[in-house]
């Protein structure tokens, strides 16, 4: 049984069909990339999985149990965490607090314990503080010494890593990364490619990633799914998909596709 099963999902907004009869699955320990031109519906897939949108048809199952009807925070508690394409960090909170905030579902102190600062509360607080530092530590030197700074003072590339650390702090089984290399320079892109590999190797996460940068996709993916106008047009290894005629057509237009042939 696959970890995440996305079965025959359709979704439309008004007259616009964004996802059409789309089926795929992600197995435990895999890194799967979703590629496709702008507006293909990639981010919508993430929004459907995380419960921000409800599908018109079809079923989404995680560890064999349906996610339909659950609220986003419940889905997160099941073990699915994501990052956002345009970053949605809590800008006025410190780096550490951003990551600690995501430990909310894994903590249980009640109001009375918090107000009276009971030993149990302090212990829990220490635990998630260590957890946050551990997750931030994953990114090596980049974030060192910035833990107490507000996020708005951080450069873009570092913010991306804070957002990843935040997602990791929810202790997910699968990480959904929405264009982790967007807006990065070649060096940083290189770095992120390595990092995603390490996330699986050291962190043990299963990863579903949306990415535009084909170098990144090539570097990380076990499997690639290509999406165009909400429909799956190809699936397979990077090589299979990158040479697929329909994929080239979707990216470059029909003329190029025939020429490439």
């Amino acid at each position, binding site marked *: 049984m696959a970890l995440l099963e996305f079965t025959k999902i359709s979704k439309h907004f008004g007259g616009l069909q964004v996802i059409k009869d789309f089926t795929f699955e992600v197995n435990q320990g895999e890194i799967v990339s979703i590629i496709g031109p702008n507006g293909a519906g990639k981010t919508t897939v993430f929004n459907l999985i995380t419960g921000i949108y409800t599908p018109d048809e079809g079923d989404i199952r995680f560890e064999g149990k349906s996610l339909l009807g659950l609220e986003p925070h419940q889905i*997160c508690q099941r073990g699915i*965490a*994501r990052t956002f394409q345009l*970053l949605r960090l809590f*800008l*006025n909170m410190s780096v550490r607090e951003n990551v600690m905030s995501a430990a*909310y579902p894994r903590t249980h102190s009640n109001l009375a314990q*918090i107000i009276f*600062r009971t030993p149990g509360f302090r212990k829990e607080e220490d635990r998630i503080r260590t957890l946050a530092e551990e997750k931030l530590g994953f990114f090596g030197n980049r974030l060192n010494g910035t833990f107490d700074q507000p996020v*708005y003072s951080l450069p873009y590339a570092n913010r991306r890593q804070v957002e990843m650390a935040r997602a990791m702090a929810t202790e997910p089984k699968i990480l959904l990364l929405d264009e982790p290399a967007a807006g990065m320079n070649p060096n940083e892109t290189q770095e992120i490619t390595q990092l995603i590999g390490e996330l699986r190797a050291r962190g043990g996460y299963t990863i579903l990633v949306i990415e535009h940068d084909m170098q990144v996709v090539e570097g990380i993916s076990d499997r690639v799914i290509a999406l165009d106008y909400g429909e799956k047009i190809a699936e397979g290894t990077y090589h299979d998909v990158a040479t697929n005629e329909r994929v080239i057509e979707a990216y470059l237009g029909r003329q190029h596709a025939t020429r490439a042939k």
Partner: protein
Amino acid sequence: MSASQLSLSGRMSGVIERWNALPIATRFFGLLVAAATIPFLTSNDYVIRIAGNVCLFAALAVALNVVVGYAGLLDLGFIAFYGIGAYLYAILSSDQFGIHWPSWLTLPFIALLGVVFGLLLGSPSLRLLGDYLAIVTLGFGLVFAQLALTLDRVELPWQEGVVINVTGGTNGIVKLDPLSLFGFQLSNVTHYFYALLIWLGIVLIIVHHLNQSRMGRAWRSMGEDALAAETMGMPTRRLKLLAFSCGAAIAGVTGAIFAAWQQSVFPQNFSTDVLITLYAMMVLGGISNLGGAALGAVVLSVVPELLRSPELARAIFYATLTLGLLLFSKPRRNGPIILISVIILGFLLRWIVQAAAPDLLTPPTIKVAAESISSAFDRASQQFGILVQGWILFLKDPLLPGNIAFVILIPALLGLSRMKAGVLKLILTIPAIYLLIFVWETRFAAEPAVTRLLLVGGLLVVLMIFRPNGLLGKRKIEIV
């Protein structure tokens, strides 16, 4: 001059730095103890009453901060919770229904009902955000105000002809029992000041602890980006209700203490004006900063009181003007230049008018009445007033010229603020400042009662221009 200024401001910032370096508990208890000495420094009930008011408003502003500052919910019905607490106390501790509950029972009960009302307002508003939430909560506040006014004649549907007076309408509920806690009955202003100070301390500790916990982090996350918070596993609906309830419980108990202190409740104690004042305090202090909310309460409770006395108002005006010029002029040396030029300009104008049309002028209106002078400060400020009125063009018939000057002043100041720095701006600033003083002396100083709130408003505008995030705020909004 500028060297001594620099060292002064350097020393100031050194003190502030050292203060900020202290642990938060030390700072908190230090301020609390300092505030607790107020009744020992003065036996003037009026001063202690203002201090009590500061504590009351600070507690409310801190509670409002949980809802608006942390959780990001624009709650305009907040004042209703304060009112509900006060009215509940009145009903449970007066002859209105002949109920006289002991305080140790009433206060927790009101806190509990605050939670219930918080949920009541919160539940239908769960799906609302921003402006929409503001409108619904504003409606809630108005409904409360209407009910307080009209629930003096409630007819029971099952008992004909029986009319029950619940809230007392415009007459309110009077002759409330005083608070009585741990066998100690609160009977005078000083007692209530200490009760409110202790309550403010408790509120600050509770809210600070909440803020530094999973709950506070979740609230602030939600305030920053509700969707991201929800996606990161935080149950935003429950968190919203919790924020509403926390704010409501604190506001309710504060209202109860207020009612007991005043020994009466009236609908106008809970009007929209009070709500706006509270918001002003919170914004002035710096949203989502607890010390800021308390500081805002201090400034906005104390300043309007200070401005009640014309002498004090004058002292504040000139002190602010001089300090403002000296500290904020760029480059620094412009401050003294402007100041001296304005003084010279004043003498020059007066000399000209004296020579040309001496009939227009009038001697200073301030009369030195020996028996009314109580302190060195009063004497000095009166002397200063006479000096100023002998310097500026103090006209026999100041009303019309004052009004005209006022109308010219506003566009002049606006124009100046848009000008590029340079010699021209420097030169034009001089008559503008003179005009400002002229307007002050002819219009404002003459009618402190009328212009008091105008001045508070002006002060707010100036403070918010210099510190757009509030006095202690550090928040930054980034548009992506």
